[in-house]
Every structure is written in C-alpha cells, then in structure tokens.
C-alpha cells in the first residue's frame, strides 16, 4: 500500500512537472531562438540547445529599435502610476472607512458598481479629454489618465475596514492628525493589501497595451509593449527576421521574468486578490 502511494506520488509529480514546463515552454523557446541563427531555427526549430550562440541578434535588435528607451518609458510611467494610485486610493479609502461626510454612500456605491466595468468604455472620451489638455502622444498624458483606479480604491477600502476602531480612536485622543493616522498606522497595518495592489498595478501597467497604443505615436515615446509590437510588425514575419524579433521580444520580456523570479511568492499571493484588472 505504502509503495503504491509512493509511486503514485512520483507519477503525479512528473505529470505536473511536465505541464509546468509546457507552460514556460514559450519563454524557453523564445530565449533559445534569440541566440540561434536564422538557418538553425529554420532547419531545427525543435532543438533546445543552440549549436552556436549568436549574441549579435541582440546588438542588431538594439540597433534597429530604441528598446532601452521603451523599457525606461514603461518603467518610470509604471512606477509613477502605481505610486500615485496607491497615494490617492489610500486617501479615499481612509475617508470612506473613517469619515462621515455627505455623499459617502453614493461614492462607495459608484466605486462598487463600476470597478469591474471594462476600461475600454472610457477610451474615446478620455482620448478627447487628453486632447483638450494637449496631452495626446505624451507619456505625461498616459500617467495622468491612469491616476485613478477604482479597483485599488475598492481593494484598500475592503482592507481598511478591518482596522479596529479602538486603535484609531486612541490615536485621535493622543492628538494624532488624520494624515498621520493614515500613513503611520492604517497603511502599515494593511501592508498586505498595499503590496498586492502594488504588484498587480506593476504587472497591468508595465504589460498594458491597448490604451498606450492609442495614445502614443512617436517611436521614441512608446512604452515597451507597443514598441515591441510595432518592431515585430516592421520586421515582418520572414524567416530571416525571426532571430532579431525573438531577441527584441526577449529584451522586452526578460525584465519581468527576473522580477517574477525574485518576487515569485508575493506574486502568487497577490494575484489572488486581483479579481479583475484595472
């Protein structure tokens, strides 16, 4: 009986390991193809260990398109967006849970009713509004149009609800200002929710495509997803351009793989909170 269970355990492990490896196969295949020569890919596309390493695919890709500029654009806009979303959302979530004011229930009802709605519905009016602000084709416009995120407000509000009233009252009677209570007591007490919102915000904004693709035109001003896709389109799906496209894609994808490997356990936890992306 014990032995049978042990064999079953191993069989299960191997099956799941194979499925897991199949899931990351596209990433592995991308990495491998990015250092192969065009001929080798065409002749032996299944070969997982390249016969010779062609790192010039990367220098060619970097010469053909401003990947570093694109990565930098994505990185700084993502950091600013995530930070500002957390900042504003914390304030609103605090007000929703700790203040009495006119319209509070209406405000929460609006947030609850709209946090799962498709952001695509807002694109045409948002585009016009940004046009009026002269912020089309501008990374500042991308940041400003993303400052609000109903999902983050909702997430923080649900988490802030669990802070015991006594703690806040004690802080108030000690003479702490509401600002101090929020940033020094409530936010640290809810660091899990804040971390979740940070990681989900990081992924959705860094990987975001449709909205930035509508907003940004200049090559220099692209974010990485949009830049990569236009790079891949201009190179075309020809056999000879295949390695350089894989090298470009690798440049775009590897930063996230590295972040994921380092922060893996937090990502797995956080993703469960993201019932829907913003």
């Amino acid at each position, binding site marked *: 009986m014990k032995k049978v269970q042990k064999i079953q355990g191993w069989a299960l492990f191997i099956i799941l390991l194979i499925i897991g490896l199949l899931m990351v196969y596209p990433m592995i295949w991308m990495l491998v193809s990015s250092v192969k020569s065009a001929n080798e890919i065409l002749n032996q596309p299944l070969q997982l260990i390249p016969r010779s390493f062609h790192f010039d695919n990367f220098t060619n890709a970097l010469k053909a398109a401003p990947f570093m500029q694109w990565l930098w654009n994505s990185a700084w806009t993502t950091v600013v967006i995530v930070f500002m979303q957390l900042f504003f959302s914390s*304030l609103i979530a605090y007000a929703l849970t700790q203040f*009495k004011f006119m319209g509070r229930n209406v405000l929460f009802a609006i947030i609850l009713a709209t946090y799962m709605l498709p952001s695509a519905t807002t694109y045409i009016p948002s585009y016009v509004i940004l046009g009026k602000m002269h912020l089309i084709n501008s990374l500042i416009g991308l940041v400003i149009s993303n400052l609000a995120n109903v999902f983050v407000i909702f997430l923080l509000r649900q988490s802030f609800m669990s802070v015991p009233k006594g703690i806040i009252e004690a802080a108030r009677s000690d003479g702490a200002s509401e600002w101090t209570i929020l940033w020094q007591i409530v936010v640290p007490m809810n660091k899990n929710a804040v971390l979740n919102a940070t990681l989900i915000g990081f992924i959705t904004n860094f990987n975001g495509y449709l909205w930035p693709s509508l907003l940004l035109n200049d090559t220099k001003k692209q974010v990485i997803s949009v830049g990569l896709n236009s790079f891949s389109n201009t190179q075309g799906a020809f056999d000879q351009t295949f390695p350089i496209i894989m090298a470009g894609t690798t440049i775009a994808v590897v930063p996230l793989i590295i972040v994921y490997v380092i922060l893996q356990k937090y990502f797995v936890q956080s993703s469960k909170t993201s019932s829907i992306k913003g």
Partner: protein
Amino acid sequence: MEMKASKRQLLLFVVIPLIPLVVFWIIPLIVSLWLSFTDWNYISPTFDYVGIKNYTQLFASQDFQQAFAHTAYFTFFSVVPIIVFGFLLAVGLNKLKRSYKFIQALLFAPWVTPLIGMSIVWGWIFNSKVGPINQILHILHLPEPQWLTNPTAAMWTIIIVTIWKNAGWAALFFSDALAKIPSSLFEVSDMEGLSWWQKIWYVLIPLVSPTTLFLVIVMILECLQAYDQITVLTQGGPAGSTTTLLYLYYQLGFKQFQMGSATALSIVILVISAILAYISIRMSRKHTYY
C-alpha cells in the same frame, strides 16, 4: 465612531484624490453613453442626436452579429477549459508532497509575462512552416493546420493562448479553496469507500462551487476584454473570423472614427459586464468562499 470630517480634511482626503477618478473614469463613462446617441465622427466639430439609431444599426449589422457570435464562441471555449484545467491542476497540486511551490511558480508564470511579447512568440510557435507545433504534428503524421490563416484554426490559436495565460491563475484559486476543505470530510469519504472520481464528483466539485462561479464570471470578463493576443496574432482576421466585440469597438472607434457606433458598442460590452459584475457581487454576499 466615525468622525465628521472638516472642510479641510474633505478637500485633502476626498475632493483632490477624486479629481482623476471623476475626469478619467466617471465622466468618460457618462460621455460614452451620451456619444452613443450622436453621429459624431471625431473630426467634425458638430454632431446631431440620432436617438437609438446607433444601437438599432449596430444590432442589425452583420459585423456586430458576427463579432457577437465570435465573442461567445471564444469565451465559451476559453472559459470551460480554463476552469476544468485549473481545477484538475489544483487537485494535483494539493496532493503533491514535494516541489509544490516550484511547480506552482511555473504554472503561474504566463499570467505575469507580457501578453504582447508572448503572443509574438506564440505566433512563431504556430507558424505553419517553421513553428514547433506543426513540426511535431509532422513527425506524428498528423494534419498540420494553417493556424493563422484558416478562420477556424485562427480562432483556436487565440483560444489556446488565452487558456495558456489563465489556467494556472485559476488553479491558484482552486488550490486555495481545496486547501480549506476540512480533512475530516476526506476521512468520511474514505470510510464510505468512495473511488477517487466519486470523491472529486461528490465532494470536491460541490465544495468549490462558489470559487468556480466566481472564476467563471471573472474569466468571462477577461475574455470580453481580450485584445493583446488578437491584435498580435490575427488582427481580427482572417476575414473577420477572430474579431470580437472589443476588437470591433477598436476598429469602429479608432480606425473608422464612427464614434457613435463605437460608443454604442462599448455600452453594450459595459452592460454585459455590469450584469456579470452584479451577479458576482450578489454571490459574494451570499457565500463565503471556501
């Protein structure tokens, strides 16, 4: 007790942080609804009110009907396998004694990596000439479909990429739900002498059903908003065979500048999403998730 906020506090905590929310979320939602009753074409400074004409024209148009059918097909054949695979993976994961975290990390990786980049890679994996999939099919003497140029196959390419991205994510939720089932239930089912599939069918599936319903709704919403894999792999083609409602919205609004029809379509997508969101909120009040 909640505190009655002073004017200064309201300004700092509510009014200022609400500005971006109002300008780029609430107003655009309302303006979209309003534009859907006009014939605005983006370039012209004037427009007329046309009542519900955009909606009646949209519902009557073949483009919309096809896109609706494609979206339903795409959503159904993506969501069902995501839920089934996600559940089975979770059952396997939770029985695993070693390397649980490692395998979980592998399964979950597709959700983190940028879908634009990975769709470019998938495009080459499905390439009918050099892609590994057809190479393997060739070795096995199986038919080699023209993945991206045949209408049915193109839809399935999009579906496969969507399943790949979300199955591991669904597994995480099921894995949590399964871990919370009290072990005494398993002891009882062992004593009753249930076989493994009876255990799955009569014990596990009913107990995770709140999670299943929640995942079904979230995944339908995800499919309604699918865009990246479509724009990279097929751009809605061949011959419109992978044009979903959201992709049609993009074409109407940002290629043809028919803002009236586009916003009307976006309101249709919004209403479908709102109904699903409403069901999910009602559900989460009724059930505590296991």
